[in-house]
């Protein structure tokens, strides 16, 4: 009996699913051992029966349930709960599912703010009331999957690297629990570090890092030590895959922005980064947009509405003028 898989994507972009396809030949190998019973991107199973005759959302039973995306509206919540109920193991796939991801940046604003901008004041739009027929209502904010359903496996990444996805399936098929790396991006970064003390302020990424293109990354000075905000110290490793590559943004000579979420599932990238900077003598007021330190992990109540009370660990709006 092949192992059955039901996959859903909620408030998301399909990047996680594309990363799955990027396993290449391994994807075809995997298809010999699993049987997909639900996966909207590739597979025609429908919620309301194949002829649209049912009135309630139906998800088939499966051994493994995989959910990408956060939970933004009532229908996504219903689907998430159905997948949970029908699957023995639930995987939260990608940083939106594990920590809210980029869409949780919306948690800073109210839906009224959004609708006013989108349906009433946009330059090209014929102003109208926000849609309210058939479309599901929004929840009060974007939730990570484990805020609404019990999660068995966390697979962070925006998107998770295909190497880890392949390893995750193989591990589950072997009856084991997959593990994510426990190191930080910094721990796996080959750039040259010289030590504390030389950088007082963070500069915006308005000009390139200093590096010699023909030389290996091990000869490029650490981007944080070049004065660029690099989230490597507080971000889970894994973007480089399992074959000895380097963190991917660093290989493009661009600083990390934290897309694999905090090193520990319940870590706080904002607090941890401010601590890391302060302990290195860097003035944290030089960061132009502190909320962005939570741009991948704003669920779990970390980012809340600007008008609301400041939650634990959330920065004030401090914006420094551009540094020229």
């Amino acid at each position, binding site marked *: 009996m092949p192992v059955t898989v039901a996959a859903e994507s909620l408030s998301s972009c399909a990047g996680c699913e594309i990363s799955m*396809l990027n396993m290449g030949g391994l994807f075809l190998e995997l298809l010999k051992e699993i049987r997909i019973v639900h996966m909207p991107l590739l597979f025609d199973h429908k919620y309301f029966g194949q002829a649209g005759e049912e009135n309630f959302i139906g998800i088939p039973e499966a051994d493994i349930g995989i959910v990408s995306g956060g939970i933004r*509206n009532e229908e996504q919540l219903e689907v998430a709960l159905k997948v949970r*109920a*029908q699957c023995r193991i639930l995987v939260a796939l990608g940083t939106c599912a594990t920590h809210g991801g980029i*869409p949780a940046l*919306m948690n800073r604003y109210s839906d009224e703010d959004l609708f006013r901008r989108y349906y009433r004041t946009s330059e090209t*739009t*014929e102003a109208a009331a926000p849609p309210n027929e058939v479309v599901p209502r929004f929840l009060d904010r974007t939730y990570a999957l484990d805020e609404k359903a019990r999660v068995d496996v966390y697979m962070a990444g925006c998107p998770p690297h295909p190497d880890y996805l392949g390893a995750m399936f193989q591990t589950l098929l072997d009856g084991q629990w997959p593990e994510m790396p426990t190191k930080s991006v910094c721990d796996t970064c080959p750039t040259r570090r010289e030590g504390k003390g030389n950088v007082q302020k963070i500069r915006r*990424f308005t000009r390139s890092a200093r590096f010699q*293109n023909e030389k290996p990354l091990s000869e490029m000075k650490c981007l944080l030590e070049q004065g660029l905000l690099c989230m490597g110290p507080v971000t889970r490793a894994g973007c480089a895959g399992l074959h000895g590559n380097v963190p991917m943004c660093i290989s493009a000579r661009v600083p990390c922005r934290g897309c694999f979420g905090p090193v520990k599932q319940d870590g706080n990238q904002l607090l941890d980064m401010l601590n890391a900077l302060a302990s290195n003598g860097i003035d944290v007021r030089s960061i132009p947009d502190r909320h962005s330190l939570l741009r991948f992990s704003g669920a779990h109540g970390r980012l809340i509405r600007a008008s609301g009370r400041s939650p634990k660990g959330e920065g004030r709006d401090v914006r420094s003028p551009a540094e020229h």
Partner: protein
Amino acid sequence: MGKAFQIEPADTTQNHGEGARKVINIQPVTRIEGHARIAVHLDDEGNVADARVHIMSMRGFEKFIEGRPAEEVPRIVTRICGICPWQHHVASSKAVDGCFGASVPSVGRKLRELMQVMAHINDKILHFFFLAAPDFLLGSDSEYSVRNIMGIAEKSPKLAEKVVQMRYLGQMMMERFAGKAIHPVAVVPGGFSKPMVESERQELLAGSRQQLEFARYAMDFAKSRVFSATDPTTKRIGDITTGFLGTVNPADGSLNLYEGLLRLMRPDGSFHEFSSREYADFIGEHVEPWSYGKFPFAHAWGEGFSMDLEQPRGVYRTNCLARINVADCIDTPLAQAELVEFRSEFGRPAQSTMLYHRARLIELLHACEKVVELLESPDITDPRVRDEVWPRAGRGVGCVEAPRGTLIHDYSTDESGCITRANLIVGTTHNLAPINMSVKKAARDLIQNGKVDEGLLNRVEMAVRAYDP
């Protein structure tokens, strides 16, 4: 399997049927990138009274990028779409360049174009073989559990292997040169984050020549096994008559995926041409109470907006069929030869919705040819790829042709270079009105006297898939 888990009790929930057995819900629309629901409304005789495609959620990018330092935004808006993140990345960077008044060194521009066009290649392979082909190769009436890429892998393992390998190759080429291939980071305001070295150029050239070979194979395969084998009824699924929007090279009116003038063509073939900065003078967006997605229309035509099948008003289409309709020619030889053949057979503008599939493969050829051409240009390894940018108050409109259509990012910044206002019109949004019309047309043609079955509903969905939303 490992440990067994207790199945939690199912959650009982609200009724989705809108209180009538007269509504047939097709949800989720499958083998598309986005999230949508089709509702077919039947009258008392069981014929189609109306059909709607509902976009069921939204994430709010236009709102939550407000206040962010503009140079960060090209790394945020990639998450609008995991299938076409490069196009959002590039359009956003262009918009930020505009806000900051930045110039981009010519090789920086070239590297942006290279990556943007390379990203089209993988997208088209994905769409044609993984999402659309199962309907044609396995049959639109075949059992739903085999009508997919897994079914193709079963039936034609060699083909599946080739397709999967080609996508893998494309993804690895992008990753090895530019870091992340999904949700890229290498395009930066002012240019590109790193130059290309000769060894990278050679490696990419070898890969891109393989891709070009594959594109020729894909076109031959599709002509002999798909297009010629499609029955006349299927060829007419979702046919409607609309205008078209795409980008052309100002010098010769040729297809351009990266930059140029926007050309908005009426159904009769006449057109307006304008720069991306002027988009709001030509395009408006209409709101319906039953979809979170807005409906762009050509307000420059002065006829308002209507999705009425007999008398549509203001409706135009984007994506590959639109681009090859508005372009006078294609500046790469293999794709140009295909365009000539296409035009002699279907005229200009070609209206048939199912022709999107053929147009997509013509663009696949063009993209592969263009990538080789760019990699062969002698200055592509020039080290000056980025100029410094200076945050300031300004406005910028960034535009590229994304796989699904003309992509527009329009930002304003304050004096510290943070976003104060953003307006986006993304590829698929342009096509929401035509998709609604095509679905209604398909449903009307296919559903009569209350007779509905699975294969038939799948053919209604084929009207959506053609647009690759």
